[in-house]
């Protein structure tokens, strides 16, 4: 099988088209925006989503494809442009409309959940690049271990030095 068949034509992504990825990255960038710390886009959240969509989220492939198209359609209806081409304020307005639309809300909720997983979850799954969210919240790295401040011998005798 030619290698090109594994990916989408003209797309560096394994599942998304370049257009889909651009829209999704813009949506995720509103769910967790960049400020003094990287946001969802910089943390590789779309990469996380794509990896999972080829593994345990495989059953959600169609949901994603349809949902992304619907968000872009909503954006064109409201503002005349695809989502990624809108200025940030208008993107937010579109997402609030999406969130309050009973038909689109389930997909948006899914995106929020997956964005959080990709941003705050373990980097081994493709998101949280350089542990950016863990640095942001102040989670020590590497984790310290074996920090028992008291002597085993005292504890074994039943002495509780902190009392």
């Amino acid at each position: 099988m030619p290698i090109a068949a594994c990916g989408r034509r003209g797309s560096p992504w394994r599942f998304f088209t370049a257009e889909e990825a651009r829209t999704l990255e813009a949506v995720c960038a509103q769910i967790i925006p960049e400020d003094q710390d990287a946001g969802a886009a910089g943390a590789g959240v779309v990469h996380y989503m794509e990896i999972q969509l080829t593994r345990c989220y495989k059953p959600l492939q169609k949901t994603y494809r349809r949902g992304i198209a619907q968000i872009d359609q909503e954006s064109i209806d409201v503002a005349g442009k695809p989502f990624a081409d809108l200025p940030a304020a208008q993107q937010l307005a579109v997402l609030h409309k999406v969130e309050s639309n009973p038909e689109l809300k389930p997909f948006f909720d899914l995106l929020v959940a997956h964005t959080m997983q990709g941003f705050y979850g373990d980097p081994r799954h493709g998101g949280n690049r350089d542990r950016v969210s863990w640095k942001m919240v102040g989670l020590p790295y590497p984790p310290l271990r074996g920090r028992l401040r008291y002597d085993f011998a005292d504890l074994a005798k039943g002495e509780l030095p902190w009392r």
Partner: protein
Amino acid sequence: MALKRANAVIVGAGAGGGIVAKELAEAGLSVVLLERGKWYSPFDCRKDDLRNQRTSPLGQAFGPDDERNPRVLVDPQGREHVVVASGPGYHNNAACVGGGTFSYGAMAWRYLEKDFRMRSTYGRLPGSTLEDWPVSYQDLEPYYEKAEWEIGVSGDVSGDPFHAPRRRALPMPPLPPNREYELLYPAAKRLGLHPFDIPMLRNSVPYNGRPACMRCRWCVGFACEVDAKCGTHNTVIPKALATKNCELRTECVVKEILTNEHGRVTGIAYFDAHDQLQQQDADIVVVSCGAIESARLLLNSKSRFFPDGLGNRHDWVGRNLQGHTYTGAFGLMPMDIYDDLGPGAGIAISDYNHGNPGLIGGAMLANEFIRLPIQFVSMIPPGLPRWGKAHKDFMRSAYRRAIAVQGPTQEMPMFDSRVQVDPVVKDHWGIPVARLSGDKHPHTIEVSTVMAGKAEAWIKEAGAIQTWKKLSGPGLSAGQHQAGTCRMGNDPTTSVVNRYCQVHDIDNLFVIDASVHVTNGGFNPVLTIMAMAYHASNHLVKQWKGSRFA
């Protein structure tokens, strides 16, 4: 080819089954211990915050797998959902050697005397099957002690005036406090409460040949990397195997319990790791699959003599499914308090387990296990957007200042909260799956709401500048604390097993797990499951007559 007949076959190597295996094997019975999951070791600890038994968007680390084990959930509106183990509504308990004890948070509570006498203490509650247990705390006390010493418990309950009488202290001292504990302890004292160190099935000092807890942040939901957490997988099951009387077979899924024309059980049929159907004959069958799967197995074991399943003559199998309604409160301190000192939970009060005016029962309240960032995402105050700049700001500024207290409200059992077998959906092996339906009793929600208020008052006193409650809504409750589906009782028409976990009308069939719990206490249930397993095993061994069970 027929397998060699055994004296006892035990289905499920969790908290209950592991202990029964060891007790019977040491008494000289030949035992086959079947487990549907795998046998993991401390080296299987991946510390993966998206794939563990607590937070599982990418799957359950220790089973069951999503592909082969669906269930059906009927929601309060009557809609049916096919659910998978890692998703919502499944009410999962781990499927592996050790069961839940392999990856649990490991709180090791003894229930209180009143927890066994809820009906006598509080009277009848309309809409609930609230009842007394046929055993008392005093009956179980020696077995609680045995569990504490053989499996291994650390902690110090001497500061708790409400604990039931005990003959012996815990074998290990508590772990030293973390920062949250240090704030909550004096606050509880100022409120006139009685804080103490949570008993935990976790080594605080080297014990049983295994090291002490290294206090990492991946505890509840994870395997213990240093094997300091004490479960049946690293205590009684190895002992059972060491007797040479016990054979453990993993990845074996039991299809049904077999019966003969005399109405006794003769063994089980199961699918082995290669999906081959096998038959294991035995003098005794012990069902220890957890409250949902135990009920499912009894209900799936239909025959001419037992058209509605085993133990189910009076339609009580699968009834009274219950768990715990967890409520509590979150708060933010003015300063950084995160000290990365696992397991996190360390301090508790049982001031509110009983004696709440106008309420039936209550809950133990404890500080919460370490919150990993992905878990903290949804622990937000009401009104805060769940996405966008405000949510990110909250995560950044609040994570290291957060404080949390919660507790398991004792639930009012409901006859119509139940496990059935689904008429349509089958698992990978063609066995009808569990069908869960029901709701919480309104009083359960009422009590849990009061408990959340108590938790909030406690963290306010500890200095939190902003607090909010975590409340519970309606919906079935079962989860890892699932219980009640094969109720223990003296009256065969209103219960499934007798006080020794023996099915009323089948003397060689036992159910030994939380299924037998009449009520589930306002505490994590595992030590009671263990104590009951010792209690039932003791009786079983005494009644065992040579090669036959009389």
